[in-house]
């Protein structure tokens, strides 16, 4: 921003962090009630274990980062679509599709050197996911079918497709015939890039994705147009932009990013496609990550790591408390979505004051908050009408 002092910058940062922090605190509080009701453990002891398991040691942070990688991919997927005004609830299916197609290239296209095989596998993941994104976009543009339900239906279809492949064409022909594909060969695997740690090169790929997300949306004309259309499609059309193009492109990219995430998860973590590969809800948790990060590149990285930590730590919590189920992590993540989307409830009652005290700064803040995440429509007329007289 122009000419801001350090103090102003700090204040701006605090304002940015206020809502996420409030949302996290509120979620942990409500989550503790759930723990109290469903177990004999002390919620704060349980949270202590969770924190230890997520961030306490080098090893646990290693696990956290590994868990964060797919979530950042799906968060990017949700974010880029949302920036174009599309609600992509299909990251889970796109992730799955990417995993299937990457597995196919991984196990069938053998005999290639890693330098070719690995990029091809990743590319296959991207294309598999983007195909699912493209289907959604095409149905929306051509028939006006709402992306909400279409993406969700595609999630189920993708899950069934995966089940079909691991029990049918891709089934590993080895007794006892587990429903899983053969292992991905070494030439298509992603390994660790820091000796002694498990966290894999996928972290670099997803961070690269985050950077491209930023660069594309704020530095290129195509990304700029996508944001214009996302915030006001009518204005976009007026300025000669194509809403259909933006819809197709953003869902293509969104699907691709989720698909890439699925590919990375298979070739770096799971090693093969299994019937249980998608038992975790990467897609919907990614939405929570994106919202907590306010669709902001850095925000996605930080909230991705936080959510990775909650996932990783929840296992330790379950083991050490013996009676608090790891699914409490899912409850907390869900609550974070609610409290972030409903963040206006944490707005310190300034609105009412506004009508009595003349304080232009406050008003600007409220409006800025309203438009920031692009999810709360503006309170339209009153202020504008009045503003005309100023």
């Amino acid at each position: 921003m122009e000419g801001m002092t350090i103090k102003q910058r700090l204040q701006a940062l605090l304002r940015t962090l206020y809502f996420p922090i409030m949302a996290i605190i509120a979620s942990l509080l409500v989550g503790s009630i759930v723990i109290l009701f469903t177990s004999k453990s002390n919620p704060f002891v349980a949270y202590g274990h969770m924190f230890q398991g997520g961030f306490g040691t080098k090893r646990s942070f290693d696990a956290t980062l590994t868990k964060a990688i797919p979530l950042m991919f799906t968060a990017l997927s949700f974010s880029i679509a949302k920036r174009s005004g599309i609600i992509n609830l299909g990251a889970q299916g796109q992730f799955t599709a990417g995993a299937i197609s990457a597995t196919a290239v991984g196990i069938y296209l053998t005999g290639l050197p890693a330098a070719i095989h690995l990029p091809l596998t990743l590319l296959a993941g991207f294309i598999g996911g983007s195909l699912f994104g493209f289907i959604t976009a095409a149905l929306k543009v051509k028939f006006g079918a709402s992306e909400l339900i279409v993406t969700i239906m595609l999630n189920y279809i993708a899950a069934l497709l995966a089940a079909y492949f691991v029990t049918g064409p891709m089934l590993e022909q080895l007794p006892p015939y587990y429903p899983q594909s053969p292992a991905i060969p070494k030439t298509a695997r992603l390994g660790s890039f820091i000796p002694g740690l498990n966290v894999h090169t996928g972290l670099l790929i997803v961070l690269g994705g985050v950077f491209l997300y930023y660069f594309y949306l704020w530095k290129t004309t195509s990304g700029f147009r996508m944001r214009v259309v996302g915030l006001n499609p009518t204005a976009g059309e007026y300025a000669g932009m194509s809403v259909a193009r933006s819809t197709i492109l953003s869902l293509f990219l969104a699907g691709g990013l989720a698909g890439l995430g699925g590919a990375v998860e298979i070739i770096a973590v799971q090693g093969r496609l299994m019937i249980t590969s998608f038992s975790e809800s990467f897609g919907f948790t990614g939405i929570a990550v994106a919202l907590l990060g306010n669709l902001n590149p850095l925000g996605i990285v930080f909230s991705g790591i936080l959510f990775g930590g909650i996932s990783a730590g929840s296992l330790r919590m379950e083991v050490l408390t013996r009676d608090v189920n790891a699914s409490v992590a899912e409850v907390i993540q869900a609550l974070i979505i609610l409290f972030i989307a409903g963040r206006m409830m944490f707005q310190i009652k300034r609105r009412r004051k506004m009508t009595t005290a003349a304080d232009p700064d406050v008003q600007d803040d409220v409006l800025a908050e309203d438009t920031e995440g692009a999810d709360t429509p503006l309170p339209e007329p009153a202020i504008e009408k009045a503003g005309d007289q100023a």
Partner: protein
Amino acid sequence: MNELANFLSTAIRLATPTLLAGLGIVFSERAGIVNIGTEGLMLIGALSGVMGSLLTGNVWLGALIAIIVTVAFAAVFAFFTVIIKADQTVIGTGMNLLASGLTITVNRAVFGANTSPPKIDTFRTTPIPLLSKIPYLGEIFFRHPVPIYLAFLLVPIAQFMMFRSNTGLKVRSVGENPKACDTVGINVTRTRFLAILYSGVMAGFAGAFVSMGQLSFFTEGMIAGGGFIALAAVVFGNYTPLGVMIASLVFGASNALMFRLQALSTGIPSQFPLMIPYIITIFSLCLVSRKSNKPAGSAIPYIKE
């Protein structure tokens, strides 16, 4: 002919959860609320119904408990979307995740992870005297558990309420133009809130029917998209109760077809028939989206000046 009667009877049975939930959603949709969280509400209804039935030993009391618990969660959704004016889709997604996590947590806390489900009172088939004796028709229409009769009896009542009652007019109006409603003294917030609670009642009942009418136990994630399909049925049914019924029957038939294909050894891998309901849903959306009764104010929070 017997095969066909059997098939149609199954279709009706499988259409019922969609119809029950859809008859609720159609009112909240008309009021301008898109509740993606119906899936989660049904899940909560399914679990609390089983728990209630276990606790009271009576399936109807179980269903009542399911409805009460589900309405409480619907109130949470309403609070965030109508009072706080948060994005409906995002809150709905959050509710689904919440329901998924909570039902797993509670289910494992109450029933344990790997034990076989306890025996509970369920909705049993109640043939209607005389009518059930009619050849074919009796089997198709009149040999079902009571909630199925209720669901279909509710259709004309809902249709009447929607288009002939003062409440229905208010509900349809707050979805079309909340500001205009405000100027004639209708409390938009209250109307929308109540519409959501009502859809919670129906979602809870629908969930309870899934766990206690179609099955007799709860499994994690057992709704498997049923809530979303109910939403799609409302769109496909063009936002009228009668339309919802027809759409539900189409989805029910596609489900019945799926079971048929699974049962027959056709050589088709089992996953493909399982995809049928989802694919039909997508097709139905493409078919009707362009020319629909979708309310003008759908999914837009009403912010009073």
